[in-house]
C-alpha cells in the first residue's frame, strides 16, 4: 500500500495531546506506519516547541518594497537587453573591421607610423611624405573606424549612466 493511513493524523494528535482511545490503540498495534509515527511524534512535538519564542522577522513592508524594486530593475534589464545585444554586435563588428584593416594594410600603417618617429620628425619629413605613403581610402577608413569606436563607447557609458 502506498496511500496514507487515514488514522495517521489522529495518532499524531493522540500522542501529542495524550488523548488515546481504545480503537486508536488497537489500530496502532496493527499499523506499522502509525506505530512509527507514534514513536517519534512526542519528540517532534517537544522539539518544535523548544524555541517557542518571539523571533523578529523582516518587516513585510520592507520586503514588499524590495521586491517591487527588484521587479523594476528586472524589467529595466529586460527592456535594455536588445540594446545590450546591439552594443555587443557593434563592438564585434568594429573589432573585426580593425583587425581586417590592420592585417590588410599593416605594412603601410607601420610605415606611416614610423614617419612620426623622432628621427623622421627631426629630418622634417613627417607631414606631406607621411600622408603620401597612405592612400586616402585607408586614412578615411581609419577615421571612420575611430569615430565608430568612440561613438559606441560613448553610447555604452551614457546608457549605463
Amino acid at each position, binding site marked *: 500500500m502506498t496511500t496514507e493511513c487515514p488514522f495517521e493524523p489522529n495518532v499524531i494528535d493522540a500522542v501529542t495531546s495524550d488523548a488515546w482511545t481504545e480503537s486508536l490503540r488497537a489500530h496502532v498495534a496493527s499499523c506499522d506506519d502509525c506505530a512509527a509515527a507514534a514513536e*517519534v511524534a*512526542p519528540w517532534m512535538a517537544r522539539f*518544535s516547541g523548544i524555541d517557542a519564542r518571539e523571533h523578529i522577522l523582516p*518587516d*513585510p513592508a520592507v520586503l514588499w518594497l524590495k521586491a517591487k524594486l527588484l521587479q523594476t530593475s528586472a524589467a529595466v534589464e529586460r527592456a535594455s537587453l536588445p540594446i545590450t545585444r546591439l552594443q555587443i554586435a557593434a563592438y564585434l563588428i568594429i573589432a573585426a573591421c580593425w583587425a581586417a584593416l590592420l592585417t590588410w594594410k599593416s605594412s603601410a600603417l607601420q610605415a606611416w607610423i614610423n614617419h612620426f618617429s623622432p628621427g623622421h620628425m627631426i629630418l622634417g619629413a613627417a607631414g606631406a611624405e607621411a600622408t603620401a605613403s597612405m592612400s586616402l581610402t585607408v586614412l578615411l577608413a581609419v577615421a571612420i573606424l575611430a569615430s565608430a569606436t568612440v561613438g559606441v563607447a560613448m553610447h555604452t557609458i551614457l546608457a549605463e549612466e
Partner: protein
Amino acid sequence: MSAMPFGAAVRTAAPLRPERSMDEAAFEAFYRKTAGGIWAYIYRMTGDAAMADDLLQKTFFKFLRSNPSIADDDHLRRYVYKTATNLVFDHFRETKRDRARAYEWMPAEVRPDRGDLRHDMARVFADLKPQERALLWLAHVEGNSHEEIAEAIGVKAKSIKVMLFRARKRLGEMLTKKGLAPEVTR
C-alpha cells in the same frame, strides 16, 4: 521590524494561478499568517537563524515575483512551502562541502553538541538527511498530508509513505541510541 510568532502551523496546497494581483495589504496579512511557520521550517532545516532570515526573504521575493493572486490562501501557502524547500535544498547543494569542512575544524566548545537538551535535540535533527528533516517537519509540525508533502519536496505522492516511514524509523533509532527516546503512552 515586527515580532512574529514562531512555528505557527499552516496547511499547504497547489501552484499559483494569477487571477487578481495581491496588493500590499493582502501580502502583509498573508505574510503575518505564514512567515513564522516558514521561518521555523527553514531554521530547523538549516540550523542557522541568519540563513533562515535570508532564505525567508528569498522565498517571499520569489513569491511576489510570481504575481500571486489573492484567490486561495491554501494555494499560496503550498507555493511558499515548495519555494522555501527548493531554496533550502539548493542551499545544501551549494554548501555541502563547506559545511562538512567547517564542522571538522570547528573548536569543540562552539560545536552544537554542548550537552544541554536543546542542543542535543537540534544535533539529532541535524544528523538526519535534509529530505528526512523536511518530511518529518512537514508531517509532524505542519500537519501536512502526504500529497502536500510530496508537492513541497518535489516527489511522487505515493513515495511519501515509504520515505516518511524510513525517516521516522531512522529518527527513532537515533533517539534510542542517544537515550533521548520519549516514552509513548498508548
